[in-house]
């Protein structure tokens, strides 16, 4: 594994530039600021790319072209849409609960953005390599229920309220299998730190050792990001887009920004936990050596975008669940399955230790 990569080069260059001017403390601080700005740029550009990608994938799945008028291959479509959203009137309905209604879209963005702090983009390129890495991600994502409920409640609209209540029911029931599926990986690694989870997969990716956990994670993550077939929170057909009904213009697009930020985050976490993170395909021989030369962040981006494509594939091929089916599937299928996975993983680890004579 090559020890220097583009992120470390940039960081050491900035350090050598800044430390004579500012001293050590201020340099550390400004490196964090640079990291934060980098993450924000990643989030925003990704949202723009992913909206276009979603529409193109939708077109592909349904044998049509998708957006193709603005710019070559429709590339500038999202840019035009963003300009339209920015220039729209900021309309506020009269009877809303003013503060709760106005704060909800902004607050939804905080857990979505905070999750990026622990995503390992490359070797030693984790914005903050916390000791409790993945647990921090779980704790933050548990907060994203609250803004949905705030939007649903604050809108003072019965359909929004229904959507908010559904958000609570759905996100809390699917959070448990999500955490339990992650637990299998944590048991194998013996650490919560993101960098050591990636290190542990240098020989074999955990998708091979924990296939059931991977499937549970993908299903639960689809539900956590409120995407079809689990988009009962929005459900245009029956509750008119749920919590988003009373929002327009930029406030409305904040919800979409957060949704795509979350989509990227859960895909990046799937990549880190199950697909080896920034590490190349562990192939033996000369081919493996060639693959080592591709930089880690390209591997990371390719795997993450593959996961995003899988989530989009789900969205355009599965019909929506009914609410009772959703709940019984979460509690009666996913939860026992993930508990069984933890038990089998524990027994497996025990026998492995006995076999190697530990």
């Amino acid at each position, binding site marked *: 594994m090559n020890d220097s990569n583009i992120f470390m080069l940039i960081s050491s260059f900035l350090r050598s530039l800044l430390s004579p001017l500012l001293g050590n*403390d*201020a340099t550390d601080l400004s490196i964090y600021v640079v990291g934060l700005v980098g993450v924000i740029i990643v989030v925003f550009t990704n949202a723009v790319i992913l909206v276009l990608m979603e529409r193109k994938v939708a077109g592909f799945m349904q044998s049509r072209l998708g957006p193709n008028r603005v710019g070559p291959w429709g590339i500038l479509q999202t840019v035009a849409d963003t300009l339209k959203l920015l220039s729209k009137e900021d309309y506020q309905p009269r009877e809303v*609960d003013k*503060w*709760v209604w106005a704060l909800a879209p902004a607050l939804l963005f905080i857990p979505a953005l905070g999750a990026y702090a622990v995503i390992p983009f490359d070797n030693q390129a984790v914005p903050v390599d*916390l*000791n*409790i890495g993945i*647990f*921090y991600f*779980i*704790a*933050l994502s*548990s*907060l994203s*229920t*609250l803004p949905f*409920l*705030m939007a649903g*409640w604050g809108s003072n609209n019965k359909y929004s309220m229904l959507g908010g*209540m559904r958000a*609570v029911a759905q996100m*809390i029931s699917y*959070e448990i299998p999500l955490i339990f599926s992650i637990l299998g990986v944590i048991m194998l690694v013996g650490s*919560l730190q993101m960098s050591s989870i990636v290190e542990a997969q240098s020989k074999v990716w955990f998708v091979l050792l924990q296939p059931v956990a991977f499937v549970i994670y993908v299903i639960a993550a689809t539900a956590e990001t409120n995407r079809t077939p689990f988009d009962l929170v929005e459900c245009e057909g029956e509750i008119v887009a749920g919590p988003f009904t009373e929002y327009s213009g930029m406030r409305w697009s904040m919800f979409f920004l957060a949704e795509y930020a979350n989509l990227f985050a859960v895909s990046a976490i799937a990549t880190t936990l199950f697909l080896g993170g920034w590490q190349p395909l562990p192939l033996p021989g000369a081919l493996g050596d060639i693959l080592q030369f591709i930089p880690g962040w390209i591997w990371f981006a390719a795997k993450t975008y593959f996961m995003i494509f899988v989530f989009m594939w789900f969205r355009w091929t599965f019909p929506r669940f009914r609410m009772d089916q959703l709940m019984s599937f979460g509690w009666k299928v996913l939860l026992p399955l993930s508990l069984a996975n933890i038990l089998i993983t524990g027994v497996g680890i025990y026998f492995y230790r006995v076999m190697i004579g530990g």
Partner: protein
Amino acid sequence: MNDFIFAAAFYGLAGMTILSAAGVVFLKDIVHSALMLALSFIGVAGLYVLLNADFLAAVQILVYGGAVAILIAFGVMLTRRRNMKESNPNNRWVIYASFVSAAFFAICGWALIGTDFKPVGQQVNPEAAVEGLASLLLGDYVVAFESAAVLLLVALVGAIILAKGAKEA
């Protein structure tokens, strides 16, 4: 520089925690109170981070912050009032309650003054980190841990039976 940032973060978080806790008591709309409660829990989690107990902070957010959503769901469903602006009112118990809370505050203050606090170092206290907690919970205190788990299970089953009736459940 670092001391200044630490002090600023501490006073900011402490102020946020206390103000939002006051908001829980004084706001008239019960949903607003519950949201303030979430803010207060997050402030406490921030204080844990300042004490280098980041696992505890994450647990605080996951268990308490996440549970506020359920609290609101029940708060909204169980307090059906025409006017939500008066869903968290004061009543005649306010005088007795003030005595009880003053007594509670006095006991807490007495315990705080009596405790000999040791300064925390830069390193994470091993007993507050994940490994230390795990070996304490699943080693020395495993019986207490498991019996608490069984107690929670009993409460869960009891709630289902109370709600649905013994025959149906």
